[in-house]
């Protein structure tokens, strides 16, 4: 606990009115603040540097995803999911694909599963790299950020090799991938796997055992496991509090049961724990990628679902059946089973869920996204109460609140 704070004001303690005495200032953290870069607003009541209470405003980039989803055919929703958690778009893409596949009960080849695992874990690395390097930036150490961003750039080149885009990937289709991994991709991935650990260790050495960094992050924005569960935390933030809940392990999807990896946890749920959990998850993701690459089965890169997976262009041109399917898929007129399905994947920030209600129509009747950021960001005032402004900034960046996911 910060030594300069009184013992009675600690995160989680609800401050009585009497506690809040004289010298209170109202500080507007955001929206145009470097730490909130235009999206979040926190109206802080501070006594000196100590935060007494905080009130959040969100919705600054509310884009009505769920409403749009009710107006778009299933295959056009993939680009939407890109923009949920844009730091790890492929995970959202594939979560959505798997949801629809669950609805239409498609059988997915093992190879597609493994390809998906590789892409998703790359995305997870990219996501965690951004978060951890931004923690570094917010503590003032900019250099580590530039080192890992060079590696993140490599991940984006890999995505570009697979799907043609860097950030909003729109990768994969319902039923599989639009194309197989190219030899260039394999070569680049091998290079990446060789080079990345070195740079990553450098980054780790720069920060994780540096006393200044440890002092800054330990006890900054802690949350206990019980409170975290009450708040429905998930992902690295929950694991930092000590609960090893990971959708990949609990409800394995996309053949995650085939891979051997540990679930890193922290102890107090403070910034340092979150940082370290993410660091270790990056290492685990690397190991998963290696396993998937080594055990990549032969086979097709798409499932046999002609109602959803577009036929090849030559067939469209030459075969009547293919042309009809093509038109039907594009127009969104293929029959979809009626039903309700909930599917969740372990996104960069936790359990990304898709609650899909289909009435058999062209577009989903209702599609709700379980957005982990939106759910856990509400715990932020509790986490920073009694802390200093510096801690609040660090806590915000270490929670990795992605605005696209927060405001939907």
């Amino acid at each position, binding site marked *: 606990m*910060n*030594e*300069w704070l009184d013992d009675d004001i600690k995160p989680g303690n609800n401050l009585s009115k009497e506690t809040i005495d004289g010298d209170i*200032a*109202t*500080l*507007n953290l955001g929206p145009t*603040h*470097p*730490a909130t870069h235009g999206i979040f607003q926190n109206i802080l009541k501070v006594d000196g*540097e100590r935060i007494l209470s905080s009130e959040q405003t969100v919705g600054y980039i509310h884009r009505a995803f769920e409403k749009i989803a009710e107006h778009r055919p299933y295959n056009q929703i993939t680009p939407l999911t890109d923009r949920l958690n844009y730091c790890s778009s492929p995970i959202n893409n594939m979560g959505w694909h798997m949801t629809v596949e669950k609805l239409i009960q498609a059988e997915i080849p093992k190879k597609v599963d493994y390809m998906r695992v590789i892409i998703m874990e790359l995305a997870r690395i990219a996501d965690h790299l951004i978060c951890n390097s931004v923690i*570094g*930036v*917010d*503590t*003032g*150490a*900019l*250099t580590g950020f*530039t*080192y890992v961003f*060079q590696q993140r750039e490599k991940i984006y080149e890999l995505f570009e090799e697979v799907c043609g885009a860097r950030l909003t990937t729109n990768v994969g289709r319902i039923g599989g991938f639009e194309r197989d991994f190219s030899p260039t991709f394999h070569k680049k991935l091998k290079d990446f796997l060789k080079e990345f650990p070195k740079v990553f260790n450098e980054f780790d050495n*720069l*920060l994780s055992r*540096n006393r*200044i*960094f440890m*002092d*800054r992050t330990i006890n900054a924005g802690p949350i206990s496991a019980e409170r975290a569960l009450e708040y429905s935390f998930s992902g690295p933030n929950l694991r930092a509090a000590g609960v090893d809940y990971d959708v990949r392990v609990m409800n394995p999807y996309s053949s995650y049961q085939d891979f051997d990896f540990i679930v890193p946890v922290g102890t107090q749920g403070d910034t340092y724990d979150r940082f370290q959990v993410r660091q270790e998850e990056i290492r685990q993701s690397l190991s998963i990628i290696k396993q998937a690459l080594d055990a990549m089965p032969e086979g097709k890169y798409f499932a046999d679902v002609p109602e959803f997976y577009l036929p090849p262009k030559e067939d469209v041109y030459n075969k009547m059946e293919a042309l009809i399917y093509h038109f039907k898929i594009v127009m969104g007129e293929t029959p979809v089973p009626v039903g309700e399905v909930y599917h969740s994947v372990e996104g960069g920030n936790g359990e990304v869920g898709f609650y899909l209600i289909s009435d058999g129509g062209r577009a989903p009747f209702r599609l709700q996204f379980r957005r982990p950021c939106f759910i856990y960001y509400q715990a932020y005032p509790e986490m920073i109460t009694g802390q*200093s*402004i*510096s*801690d609040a*900034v660090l806590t915000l960046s270490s929670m990795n609140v992605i605005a696209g996911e927060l405001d939907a």
Partner: protein
Amino acid sequence: MDTGLLIEKTILVVVIFAITLFIATYQTYMERKVAAWLQDRVGPDRAGPFGILQPIADAGKMFFKEDFIPANADKWLFIMGPGIAMFTASMTGAVIPWGPPLEMFGRTVVLQVADINIGILFIMGFASIGVYGIMIGGWASNNKFSLFAAIRASSQMISYELAMGVSIITLVLMSGSLSLGEIVHQQHGMNWNIFYQPVAFVVFFICSIAECNRAPFDLAECESELIGGYHTEYGSMKLGFFLFAEYVNLFISSAVIAALFFGGYNFPGMDHFSGNTLAILGTAAFFAKIIFFIFVIMWIRWTLPRFRYDQLMHLGWKKLIPIAMINLLITAVVIGFNSGWFTKKSAKVKQTEKSVAMMPKAKVDAQANYKINFNN
């Protein structure tokens, strides 16, 4: 007052001021380039060859930017803030000996504006009032973040000044003089204070980074927390003054570090030279040292995370001050031991012996050497 001296000093003041400004300007370029190199980047390279005109572009832009005073700011103080920061920053250069004496037009030109016998106190004094620029600027902006920065800056300055002062006193004990010129004279050749007082050096170095408001102690302007800190509301040339003052401060404190601990213009093998050659080489050596320290401070900035406010205070009060105190105590005891205060004849040590006795032996020799050289 002798007219020649007056002209000489005037020229010296102008030259030193110009050099200070020039170096401060190009420190911004250096900062950008160093940061770029440390981060596998190129840095500015489009303004002129290798981006060499970057600082000039910055200055040109700021000069022609709209000069804005926030409506609810205290107008006069708002303008005064950057001025004070600039003034105090450039005053300190007056007592630093920039090089060995130069022979010119039949006169011996001492490359020091004023060799006042309390030079160190002068530096301390101006270092301590340097904070007013930040405080006034931050307060007058009428912005909460600026106010926070001002409060942070002032308490940081007061805290780190103490440890800084104590570590300087250690040096004063050793050299027996408050004059900066004298202290530099004593470090003839390689007889630098860093070899006698490494602990004092570390403390002083840390404190001078803190006094310059540089990372990892840049709490007064830390971007990720307080936006721009005390200069959040400043734009155009007033902001330029603030940033400029920061770099001047950096330059001056590097100079003070080099002068106090790294022999100033002294360099090994300086006995082989004399006269103007020595003066030029000495000055060059001094500037090389200064630039090295500027580089080190930049290097630190781009490597380390910054402290939190309470940790900063913690470090200052609970770590640096005790360390400096203990160092002072040990130095005092050793000096006392050397001068025989703990032996029987201690009572009879004469006044004249005292000042000599307060120095380690090597120092005394150096001083003697210097006097001989100086008189030649």
